[in-house]
């Protein structure tokens, strides 16, 4: 991967640049955050000409490494006002890596009303005016682009929400079965929409196997790595069978399942939308319980979920989405949840921000609790068409809560809090408060050690040890997000010593380096510090590293606990 493609949408020009030496050892999140921090003024408007949208495969993307198909997208976030890196599966990362492209940087903004598409190939990028796909949902765009250009092209596209520059919008990536994976969080669809790009197609022609510094060592390390993925019960068995939705019952039993807009920690009807129920339905209806988001995935946490007649309803049906609709919004029919999930994908909206926003809208009385049919109607008629109501809701959870004068607004840095209540699971509260990304469970998944007994045990109800736990996880996560590996490799990495060693061996064999585990930790720390410095300069100071006040005021059943972490202790997070 030896070249950077730079696309200027102001003058519609393209440059192919060599990779600066300082960026040679970076990939994925490390590279997108480094480029955004170096080139975007922190005070820039996220939807203005000075923001940049950066795509980068990871350091191991495009190789034969298992689970290396993740793809990073970075920019200043229109939702949080801070730096954002979002990760997605799909086919694009591998194709782009094998074309030798280390990153695609999209900058500037066209003056007129013309929309464009980008066609990326081994030779560069062609900027073409686009009309036919405007207004289309993501599934139709993928079909149309593959028909127009070729079945094997990767597609990165906006749905209608991104065209309308909504803060809930995401960027969708075609997966191996022409369905959708998403750069979900942070409203990045709005950044792509502000540059008037409906879709990016990537021509795989001319892509080649990547040169490895030591092919034999790489192969051996990948075998060890893959064995650890298969040997760990979570990555080897649990995720394959039940998907991530297995957590519905786990988090409910632990008393941390935010229910009815974060007013209880348990939901009476939890088993109706659990991973176990999902599995039973999939098997009974001829779906697929195990399915990968990208080529080379061993873990197979995705699935294909059909309706009662055996017709496709959705895939990539995730715990956080199911939680938000099922427990937080009380829509307990799993088939309705699946239909809504598919509409989220089609409109190109974040399937965490959007349903958490809807639960706040339910509390505001805008629609009844549990009314999935009304939600579908609003999605199709208001959000898709950007009516005034659609624009109000499209602004996200914080926007809607403020509009209706609510105080129970579950956001940090204006990004919706996902599926784990921080009052009885305090480690994840530290992550929500301190991560550079706004509330994001994946940034430092303390659930592993607080609840799942992976990577040791730290009592979820005590404050002691949580800052250190979250810090270590956030550092490790920033490093993993830079490799292009799926974050779920963390389950074996936390429990099986050979796992992380084999990742370091693969990096060394790929690039001819002699990194140690300490170097990988140093990379993670560096990424966090680069992102933190950007946020401070953007106005997201220490006063924004905190949870909303209602967590301190409202005890959560069944543990009857509030959030009571000392703010000074939280601030020690950055002591590294």
């Amino acid at each position, binding site marked *: 991967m030896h070249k950077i493609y730079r696309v200027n949408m102001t003058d519609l020009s393209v440059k192919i640049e060599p990779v600066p030496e300082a960026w040679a050892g970076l990939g994925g999140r490390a590279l997108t955050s480094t480029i955004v921090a170096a080139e975007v003024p922190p005070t820039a408007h996220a939807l203005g000409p000075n923001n940049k949208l950066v795509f980068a495969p990871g350091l191991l993307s495009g190789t034969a490494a298992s689970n290396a198909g993740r793809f990073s997208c970075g920019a200043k976030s229109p939702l949080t006002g801070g730096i954002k890196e979002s990760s997605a599966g799909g086919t694009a990362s591998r194709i782009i890596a094998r074309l030798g492209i280390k990153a695609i940087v999209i900058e500037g903004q066209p003056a007129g009303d013309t929309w464009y598409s980008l066609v990326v190939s081994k030779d560069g990028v062609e900027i073409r005016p686009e009309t036919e796909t405007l207004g289309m949902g993501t599934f139709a765009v993928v079909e149309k682009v593959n028909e127009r250009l070729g079945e094997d092209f990767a597609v990165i596209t906006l749905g209608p929400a991104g065209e309308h520059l909504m803060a809930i919008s995401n960027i969708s990536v075609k997966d191996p079965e022409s369905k959708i994976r998403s750069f979900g969080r942070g409203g990045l669809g709005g950044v792509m929409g502000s540059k008037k790009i409906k879709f990016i197609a990537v021509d795989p022609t001319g892509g080649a196997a990547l040169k490895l510094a030591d092919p034999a060592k790489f192969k051996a390390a990948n075998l060890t790595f893959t064995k650890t993925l298969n040997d760990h019960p979570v990555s080897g068995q649990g*995720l394959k*069978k039940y998907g991530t939705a297995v957590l519905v019952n786990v988090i409910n039993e632990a008393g941390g399942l935010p229910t009815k807009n974060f007013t209880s920690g348990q939901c009476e009807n939890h088993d109706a939308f659990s991973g176990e129920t999902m599995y039973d339905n999939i098997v009974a209806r001829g779906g697929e319980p195990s399915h990968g988001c990208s080529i080379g995935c061993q873990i197979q946490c995705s699935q294909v979920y059909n309706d009662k007649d055996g017709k496709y309803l959705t895939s990539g049906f995730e715990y956080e989405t199911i939680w938000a609709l099922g427990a937080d919004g009380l829509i307990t029919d799993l088939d309705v949840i699946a239909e809504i999930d598919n509409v989220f994908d089609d409109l190109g909206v974040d399937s965490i921000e959007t349903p958490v926003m809807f639960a706040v809208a339910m509390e505001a009385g805008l629609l009844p609790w549990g009314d999935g049919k009304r939600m579908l109607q609003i999605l199709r008629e208001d959000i898709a068409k950007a009516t005034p109501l659609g624009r109000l809701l499209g602004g996200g959870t914080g926007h809607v809560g403020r509009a209706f004068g609510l105080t129970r607004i579950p956001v940090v840095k204006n990004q919706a809090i996902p599926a784990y209540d921080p009052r009885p699971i305090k480690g994840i509260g530290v992550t929500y408060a301190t991560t550079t990304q706004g509330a994001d469970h994946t940034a430092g998944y303390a659930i592993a050690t607080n*609840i799942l007994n992976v990577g040791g045990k730290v009592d979820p109800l005590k404050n002691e040890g949580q800052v250190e736990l979250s810090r270590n996880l956030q550092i490790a996560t920033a490093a993993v997000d830079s490799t292009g590996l799926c974050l779920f490799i963390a389950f074996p990495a936390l429990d099986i010593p050979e796992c992380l060693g084999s990742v370091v061996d693969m990096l060394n064999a790929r690039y001819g380096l002699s990194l140690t585990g300490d170097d990988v930790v140093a990379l993670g720390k560096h990424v966090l510090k680069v992102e933190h410095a950007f946020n401070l300069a953007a106005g997201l100071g220490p006063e924004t590293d905190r949870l909303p006040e209602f967590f301190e005021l409202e005890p959560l059943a069944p543990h009857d606990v509030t959030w009571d972490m000392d703010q000074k202790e939280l601030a020690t997070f950055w002591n590294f």
Partner: protein
Amino acid sequence: MLITIKLFASFRDGRFKVATREVADGATVADVLRSLEIDEPEVGMMFVRARHVDVDRVLAAGETLSVFPLVGGG
């Protein structure tokens, strides 16, 4: 005394989702696992009253024990 047992994920296979069972006074979690033919190393998490418990936990009448294999997500 009577207790309630909730099983999850693969532990439901060939067993049950939820059942009320008679156990001896002073029975521990380990006793219950033995009666269900679940080996301790297979267990990922167990909860009583939404708190993690280990195999030595003595159960009280009317309590509910929830048992999960090692699973995860995120």
